[in-house]
C-alpha cells in the first residue's frame, strides 16, 4: 500500500465521517432535548437526496436542487413535528419506536410511489465534476472534497450557533433541564419545533450530498441511520461534540478497514483465506469498536455533563 492511497482513503473516511456527523447531529440533539428516539430520521436524509436529484435533473440548476433538498427536508421535518412528533414526546421509548418505525415505512413507500422502485440518477454538478490536486500529492474528486469542506463549515456553524448565540443557549438550557428552562419562560413548543427542523435539515443536507456518491433508492436512509446510531452511542447520547469526534473516527475506521484489511490479512494468511475473511471482519469492525467502547464506558466517550 502506498502513501498516496492511504491519503486518499483517509479523505474518503473523513468524507463518510462528515456525512455521518450531519446525520447524527440532529439525532443526538433531538434525543438530548426532547428525549425522542427517531427511527424516521433516515427519511429526511432520503427526502434530501430525492428532492435534490429530482429538481436538479428537471430544472438543470444545481442551486435549485440544493434549495429543494435542504428546504424540502426541513419543511417535511417541520410538518411531521407539528402533526405527529409533538404528540409523542411525552410517551415512552416504545411509543417513539412504533410511531417512527411506521413513519419510515410510509416515507419509503411514498418515495417508491412517486419515483418508482429503481434508483434515481443523481448527477454531480459540472463545476465539481473534476479532480483537485492536493498539495501536489494526489488528485482527488472535487465533489468529495467539497463535501468535506461543506461539512466542516456546517459543523463550525453549528458549534457557533450552540455556543455563542442566544438560541444556542436556550437549546443547551433545555437539553440540561427542560422543566427548569420551561419554567423560566422558554417557549419550549417553538424551541422543540426549531430543533427538530434543524436536525431534519442537516439530515437532508447529508442526503443531498450523498446522492451522487451512493444510490438514491427507497430505504437509502435506513443503513445510514443505523450507522448514525452507532455514532451517537459511541459519542455519548445528547452530545454534539461527541457525535463529531465519533463520526470522524467511525468514518475513518470503516473506510480504512474496507480498503486495507485484505492486504493486511494477506501478510499472515493464505490468499484465499484472506480474501474470504477480510471483507467479513471489515464489515464488522465499527460494531466491534462500539462493543469494546461500550463495555468499558457504557455512557459513551463524551457524555453530556448534566442531564
Amino acid at each position, binding site marked *: 500500500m502506498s502513501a498516496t492511497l492511504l491519503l486518499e482513503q483517509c479523505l474518503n473516511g473523513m468524507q463518510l465521517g462528515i456525512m455521518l456527523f450531519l446525520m447524527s447531529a440532529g439525532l443526538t440533539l433531538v434525543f438530548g432535548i426532547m428525549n425522542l428516539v427517531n*427511527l424516521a430520521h433516515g427519511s429526511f436524509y432520503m427526502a434530501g437526496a430525492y428532492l435534490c436529484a429530482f429538481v436538479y435533473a428537471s430544472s438543470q440548476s444545481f442551486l435549485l436542487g440544493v434549495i429543494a433538498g435542504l428546504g424540502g427536508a426541513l419543511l417535511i421535518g417541520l410538518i411531521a413535528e407539528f402533526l405527529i412528533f409533538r404528540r409523542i414526546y411525552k410517551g*415512552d421509548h416504545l411509543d417513539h419506536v412504533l410511531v417512527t418505525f411506521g413513519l419510515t*415505512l410510509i416515507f419509503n413507500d411514498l418515495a417508491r410511489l412517486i419515483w418508482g422502485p429503481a434508483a434515481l440518477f443523481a448527477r454531480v454538478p459540472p463545476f465539481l465534476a473534476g479532480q483537485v490536486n492536493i498539495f501536489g500529492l494526489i488528485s482527488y474528486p472535487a465533489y468529495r472534497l467539497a463535501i468535506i469542506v461543506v461539512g466542516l463549515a456546517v459543523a463550525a456553524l453549528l458549534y457557533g450557533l450552540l455556543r455563542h448565540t442566544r438560541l444556542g443557549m436556550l437549546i443547551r438550557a433545555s437539553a440540561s433541564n427542560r422543566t427548569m428552562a420551561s419554567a423560566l419562560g422558554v417557549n419550549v413548543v417553538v424551541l422543540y419545533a426549531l430543533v427538530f427542523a434543524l436536525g431534519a435539515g442537516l439530515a437532508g443536507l447529508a442526503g443531498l450530498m450523498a446522492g451522487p456518491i451512493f444510490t438514491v433508492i427507497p430505504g437509502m436512509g435506513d443503513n445510514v441511520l443505523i450507522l448514525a446510531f452507532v455514532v451517537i452511542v459511541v459519542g455519548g447520547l445528547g452530545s454534539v461534540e461527541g457525535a463529531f469526534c465519533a463520526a470522524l473516527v467511525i468514518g475513518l475506521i470503516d473506510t480504512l478497514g474496507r480498503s486495507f484489511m485484505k492486504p493486511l490479512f494477506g501478510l499472515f494468511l493464505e490468499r484465499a483465506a484472506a480474501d474470504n475473511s477480510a471483507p467479513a471482519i471489515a464489515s464488522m469492525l465499527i460494531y466491534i469498536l462500539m462493543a469494546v467502547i461500550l463495555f468499558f464506558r457504557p455512557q459513551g466517550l463524551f457524555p453530556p455533563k448534566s442531564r
Partner: protein
Amino acid sequence: MTKERIALALVVVLALLPLLFAAMGESYYLTVATRMMIFGIAALSLDLILGFGGLISLGHAVYLGIGGYAVGILDFYGINNGFVQLGVATLASAGAALFIGAVSLRTSGVFFLMITLAFSQMVYFLAISINSFGGDDGLTLNAHSDLGLNFGNTQVFYYFVLACLAFFLWLSFRVVRSRFGMLLRGMKFNESRMIAIGFPTFRYKLTAFVISGAICGFAGALLANQTLFVSPSIMQWTRSGDLLVMVIAGGMGTIVGPVIGAILFLLLEKVLASFTTYWGALLGMVLIALVLMGKTGLLGSMTKGGRSHG
C-alpha cells in the same frame, strides 16, 4: 378467560385447522399457517424480554438469522441430523445472545435499543459479506433437518411446528410464573429497588435475554426448514421492527398475545399485499394510529390495568 385458557384454545384451533383446509381443498393455506406459527414462536420469545423484562430490543430478528444460518451452514457441509441442526441453531443463538446481552445490558433504555439494533446490523452485514455461504443471494438448503419425520410433507411439518409452539407456550408460562419471572417483572417496575433488596439484576436480565434468543434461534431453524432457504434478509432491521409490532399488537406481557399478534400481522400482510404493493405505508399508518390512540394490544385491553408497562 385466563391467558392459559386462551393459549389452550389457540392450540386446539390450530390443531383442527388442517382438517378445515383439507375440506376446502386449500393445502397452500397450510404453508401460510405454518409460517404464522413460526413467527408466533419468535414473537413469544421477544415478549419474554420485552413484556416481562421491559427491554426494548430492536435487533431480535438477528436470532432468526443465526438459527437459520446454523441449519443452512450445517446442511452446506452435509450434516443433516435434525437433533444436531436444531441443537446447534439453539446453542448458537444462545451464545450470540450471551455476547450481545453482556454488552448491551450494561446500558439501558435508548442505548439498549440502539445497541441491539447495531449488533443485528453487524450480523446482517457479516452474512452479506461471506460469499462462500451465498452472500447477498442467500443459501439454498439441500434437505430438511432429519428428525426421522418427513418435513417435506407440509402436514407433518405443520404439526411439528404446532407441537413446538405448544411446548414454548407452556415453557414460557412456567418461566413467567416462576420466581425468576417474578424477579424479571420486579426489575421492570423498579430496578433500583430490586438491587436494594439484594438481587444481582444484571445476571437475571442476561439469563432472560439468552433464553429469549435461544427460542428465537429455534424459530429461525424452523423457518429455514420451511423455505429450504436462508438469506440475510431474514434478519433485516425492519424484520426486528415487525417482531416488535407483533408483540405490541397482540399485547405485551401476555405470552399468548404475541402469537396471535404474529398470526394477525402476517394475515394483514397477505391481505394488504394482495391489494397493493404499498402495504408497508398502510401498516405504518395503522401503527401511528395505534400509538396515538393509546396502545394496549389485543389481549392487553382484556387484562386489568390497561397499559401493562411502566
